[in-house]
């Protein structure tokens, strides 16, 4: 097992007391002692989720990144092929040549087939997340104890009191666009990465976060009759309802006649997240406004949290979604409003290079 500080590989017997024999740095995890992962896997997960230290992230993002990297031991394809070939050969010989003690051949053939089946099963991945949250939290506590808090982690402390001496004119302005999220932690992710600052964009959660400036920001948003509203949410029933909720609820944009753009996540975005889904509410699926029957079926079985996507991908795809609709007039021409879905989260994989790219022009002056 490699030490993350000196990169020296060591044998189990050499690393007594979970200490690297070379640099004496502590290991947080010991697979021989029952831990499911190594320090190196956890470090790679931190590097992956933080874009090598350039992106702020929440611990929930790290949870999914660890899961993404924590693969079960899987039988090699060659091994499966070998046993399959052996089973076919044994059965074939037994049937065609009818040797003495043919029953023994059938027994060996069946054993080879069984091994093939077990090996093949090990390669079939399950849609649900494998490491439960309690296990992750235990590992996370140990990591912090041994290696400290990683760079870029969004540490959620109570927000400071919203300043009462804010300049009076600040509430007089407005913004070009707003991103409304179903979770406060998504607001934190966007704000910590300066997404709002870079894109002239208010960011709020549907449950009124951040509480201090929430009312001021809502009043500011209402000053822009051409406000572009985007929603960003988990693939859950409440998440998929969010856009319709906003155009109906007078506390939000009900009656404003705005077109709200739903960026996702929705069930159709789930493919790249195989192995990162959560169990759904197991309720009777019902088609409703904004949720098709097919989606309702999926949503009754599964949930997909936005945090399962890497933060860098969330930011880039959100940016791409904003740019794709930058020239749209969001007014519907009546008071009823409308919902449009956006394909920013539709395409391709969620590796480091995918998504929106740098985008935008190079404006100076």
């Amino acid at each position, binding site marked *: 097992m490699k030490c993350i500080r000196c990169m020296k590989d060591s044998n189990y017997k050499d690393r007594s007391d979970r200490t690297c024999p070379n640099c004496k740095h502590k290991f947080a995890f010991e697979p021989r002692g029952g831990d499911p992962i190594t320090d190196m896997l956890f470090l790679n997960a931190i590097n992956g989720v933080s874009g090598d230290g350039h992106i702020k992230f929440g611990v929930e993002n790290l949870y999914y990144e660890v899961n993404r990297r924590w693969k079960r031991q899987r039988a090699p394809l060659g091994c499966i092929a070998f046993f399959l070939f052996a089973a076919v050969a044994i059965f074939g010989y037994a049937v065609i040549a009818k040797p003495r003690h043919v029953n023994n051949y059938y027994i060996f053939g069946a054993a080879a087939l069984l091994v093939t089946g077990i090996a093949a099963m090990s390669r079939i991945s399950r849609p649900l997340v494998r490491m439960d949250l309690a296990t992750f939290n235990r590992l996370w506590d140990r990591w912090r104890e041994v290696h400290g808090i990683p760079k870029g982690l969004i540490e959620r402390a109570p927000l400071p009191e919203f300043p009462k001496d804010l300049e009076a004119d600040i509430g007089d302005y407005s913004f070009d666009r707003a991103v409304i999220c179903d979770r406060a932690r998504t607001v934190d992710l966007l704000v910590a990465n300066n997404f*709002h*600052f870079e894109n002239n*964009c208010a960011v709020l959660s549907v449950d009124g976060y951040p509480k201090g400036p929430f009312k001021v920001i809502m009043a500011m948003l209402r000053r822009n009759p051409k406000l572009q509203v985007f929603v960003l949410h988990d693939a859950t029933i409440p998440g998929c309802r969010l856009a319709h909720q906003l155009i109906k609820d007078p506390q939000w944009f009900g009656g404003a006649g705005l077109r709200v753009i739903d960026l996702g996540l929705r069930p159709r975005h789930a493919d790249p997240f195989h192995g990162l889904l959560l169990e759904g509410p197991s309720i009777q699926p019902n088609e409703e406004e904004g949720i098709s029957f097919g989606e309702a079926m999926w949503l009754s079985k599964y949930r997909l949290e936005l945090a399962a996507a890497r933060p860098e991908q969330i930011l880039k795809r959100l940016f791409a979604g904003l740019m794709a609709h930058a020239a749209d007039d969001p007014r519907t021409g009546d008071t009823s409003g409308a919902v449009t879905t956006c394909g920013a989260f539709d395409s391709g994989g969620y590796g480091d290079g995918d998504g929106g790219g740098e985008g935008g022009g190079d404006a100076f002056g």
Partner: protein
Amino acid sequence: MTSRPHPIVHVGVGPSLGEGVTRSRPVGRIGGVSHAGDPAIGSRLSAALGRGSQILSHAGSQLVADHDGCRLDGRVLSSVEDWRAVVNGRLAAVRGAFAVAWHDSDGVVNLARDPIGERTLFYAVTPSELVFASSVQALLATGIVPRTLNLRAVAAYLCYAYLPGRETLVEGVYEVLPGERVTFGSRGLQREQFWELPTPAPSSASEEEQTCQLRSVLETAVRERLPQPDEPVGVTLSGGVDSSLVVALVRRLHTGRVYTYSVSFGPGYANELPFSSLVADHCGTDHRIVELSPAAVLRYIDDSVGQLGDPIGDPLTVPNSLLFRTAGEHVGVVLNGEGGDPCFGGPKNLPMVLWALYPGHAVEQSREASYLRSHLKCYDDLPELLADPVRDAIAARPLVADLTAPLADPRWPDFISRLQAINIRLKGGHHILPKIDALSFPFGVLPRSPLFDQTVVEQSLAIPAGLKLRGTVEKYLLKCAVAELLPQAVLERPKSGMLVPVEGWFRGPLLPAARERVLDGLRPYGLFQRDYLERLLAGKLGGLRPRHGAKIWLLITLESWLRRVLNGR
């Protein structure tokens, strides 16, 4: 949006920028030393300041002034006698561009710069004397000012793309601030502001009255900057609201021929030509499109940057130079729309409003840090970018400390007005105006900026914040004041700065040159971490919007300036 075709001036790789230029400004630059000493110093100053230079003597001429369009109580200041009459006590009332130096009767040397910063003036105190000049290049040419790099200023440049105050990139060389008077005599060096941005009470006039007042002030500002009625005049035209409104007012107020000049970067790169051509057609100007190839940009970057007193890392320096060169073939006066953003509530204000609304969210969120970050340059990259000596220099005196007082200045209770005051002082007086002054000088062209007119600035400060930035509409009152002069498409066009394709250049044709200049050219100075520079050039900085191109431009400008100006090669 359609327009008639306009002549295109293709700029390729050719002779150096100043070659073949015959036009010169009617008034030259200034320089001098506080004590009569080595006459060779005056000669070197004079040679470095260029045609028409004026050196402050210790006998006859005891006042020198580089000035353009200066008026006092409506009377034009043109002679040395005119200036002598105003320098003691009435400078604050002079309107126009000037840098002036004079001896008092008791031998004290005085330096002063116009209130907005349209002309520049630099100085250094050597062990025995004060030496001053319109350009840093001239100060260095005297041989008595050490060519020592100011490390803290390097970090400031990387955050702002210009030097935002008195300090320059040369240790011990300082800039006279806009509206400042510097004296040097027996009591040593002293500084005082003879003019401060006014803090007028917000006007109680109706919106319509304020619109009319602003329109009147704008017309006066443009009229006062026009040449004689029968002379041609030029205007640089990006197609944005600011330059378009200047074109429209010039067309309305000037009877002579009006040339307009726009820039394009050739096929395959974004440009604003549809808007600039629309305005040119709308106003009936003689329009020219100056098209720059990437090779031309590379050819002329050293010539352009070599003109700057401090490095200015916005990629418009080369286009600006080439526009002035082209304009100089037709006209001696070129107006521009600079100043609309800082004075009337342009971009960069809303991000700061957002900062104020989201305090304490996990990133360094001081107001000062956000202001630096809003320049979208290298502020967040400094820890990875800077080598230890530069880091030590800013650790000793953090850059944010310079902004604490201006960002809390109680004279402007409105957030937007406070930002406006800072932007006028910093971006106006240290970036935009010095840049166009320096880049137009070699072609003998007089650049004039009516939106930075002192009266326009004063008027803009009196406009209630809500009429500058109304909801999301930036420069609201300015647009109202010129609404009937401009095509609707220009008034309502999406927000955009001038588009310069730096990302494309440095992913393609200019990358080899950038590697050479950034990796090899900057190495001897020991300012930066090599690993960061390698990742920057490979396009692998990471993060949401790394802006590789803008940062590479910043660094190649610095390399060029250090080579051409600091080291004089």
